[in-house]
């Protein structure tokens, strides 16, 4: 079987969802597509069942926090893998901090269960339709989401150290 390249994959997706591919790029050869957050679930399901694309493997789900990007503070990044085409695919959905929810993928990939719980645990992103959305690695009674950028790793009130020499200072 002929393997599809990134361009062909992108074309197929754009044909099927002309209004939902918001941005695309290829960092280090990995096709990265930003899609409408509300359509994320539908697109991934379509990718999985597509005969030629056959995106059969969910590699992982990651949350990212961009506090300065107003209206799109959070990203949910899906890394997918099509074994037939021997290629990876990255799908991004941006969410606003005021509407921090996205459809759960558990009905498409059972393995999304814990990956989404982890993303919820650390970023507070609500996965609608998830069967059991609880904290997973952190303690249940915790009342904040620690991977958000506003929580500094070290005590933010300390004044005896000059953070400039250890990396990021402005967050």
């Amino acid at each position: 079987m002929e393997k599809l390249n990134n361009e062909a994959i992108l074309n197929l997706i754009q044909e099927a969802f002309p209004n939902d591919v918001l941005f695309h790029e290829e960092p280090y050869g990995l096709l990265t597509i930003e899609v409408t957050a509300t359509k994320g679930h539908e697109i991934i399901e379509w990718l999985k069942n597509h005969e030629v694309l056959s995106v059969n493997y969910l590699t992982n789900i990651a949350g990212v926090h961009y506090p300065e990007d107003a209206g799109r503070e959070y990203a949910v990044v899906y890394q997918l893998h099509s074994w037939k085409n021997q290629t990876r695919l990255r799908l991004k959905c941006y969410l606003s901090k005021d509407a921090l929810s996205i459809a759960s993928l558990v009905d498409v990939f059972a393995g999304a269960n814990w990956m989404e719980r982890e993303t919820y645990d650390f970023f507070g992103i609500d996965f609608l339709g998830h069967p059991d959305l609880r904290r997973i690695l952190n303690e249940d009674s915790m009342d904040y989401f620690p991977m958000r950028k506003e929580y500094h790793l070290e005590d933010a009130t300390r004044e005896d150290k000059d953070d400039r020499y250890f990396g990021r200072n402005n967050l």
Partner: protein
Amino acid sequence: MSELKTKEAFAQSSETIDGNIATINFGPTHPSTHGIFQNVLKVDGEKIISSEQTVGYIHRAFEKLSERRPYNQITPITDRLNYCSSPINNMGWEMTVEKLIGAEIPKRVQYMRVIIMELARIADHLICNSVIGVDAGALTSFFYPFTEREKIYELYEEICGARLTTNIGRIGGFERDFTPAFHTKLQSFLKTFPKAFEEFDSMLARNRIFMDRTKGAGPISAERALAYSFSGPNLRATGVDYDVRAMHPYSSYEDFDFIIPVGVNGDTYDRFMVRQEEIRQSIRIIEQAYNNLPEGSYKADLPDFYLPAKADVYNNMEALIYHFKIVMGETEIPPGEVYHSVEGGNGELGFYLISDGGRTPYRLQFRRPCFIYYQAYPEMISGMSISDAVLTLSSMNVIAGELDA
């Protein structure tokens, strides 16, 4: 006293086996969990009806920590993921950074890495398989391979001085070339290991008791395993030959001839057999890499990341500047987004790294195979007996460090 009596009465009532459901805590510190994680089992007699997992007991916030550390200081964090095969984690991370900065890595370094990573795979699989033996009641098979594992640890020691949490290698290569002692030890290991390994294999692989205990214990179908994003030996035991080394070769794996073994039923016995065969294949890979070890440098030319020789630091101003920048964590990394994965001991170990051009990652996520496949455990042990659940757990090779990050 009265309190004691109540407790006793409670214990008796919850252990009645005439169709009543009892709740049993399997873990968090049960010896056969081989790590700290809890399973609350609902059992009807010996039969498991359902189970609920609690993980996160040793969560150490690696992803958060990484956001405040220069790139070379993240390597020791990766040690603590799957600590049975830390060199694979270390090198996976180093390769991720090298991919991000677009570094050219000498062929010799790639082959040296393959040798170390395959040694780590052997050590990892040896522990897992010998522990399956222990949980099936065979303690002898646990002690046998430890002599051999010790030799692998001595080989690590020759390279980096450490044994368990290795922090082996550097971004750009190795801290030093293979020493003469390493060559001697590796050659003798390659000579003696296959024989010792077959001895270990003969204790379990065709052992009637072991086979009766492990066949059919904790099976999973290929479809379910894929839905759960299984990878590594656990996936291959179901008959799916997905291996990152073959699908997306890194560090020159395409140069070597090896077989990816698969199982049929996806049960404990198949997982055991797949790991056994992988050990044999690893030896083949090491032999190929070692016999064809290319000439050249043991490090890439990456002055921004690779510490200069000490003599140069004292005599050469540029080297001093680089030394200072690296030690103080002042190396700027180009902005970018990269995903790199290696075939770890347990499966696809991935690093998803977003750099905003600062000195630390903006976001680093570890794809930890353990964490992803352990969620299938309740499904796998449902309807099994408790002793099968123990075997399933050890044969899945759930490592607490990797599970909890």
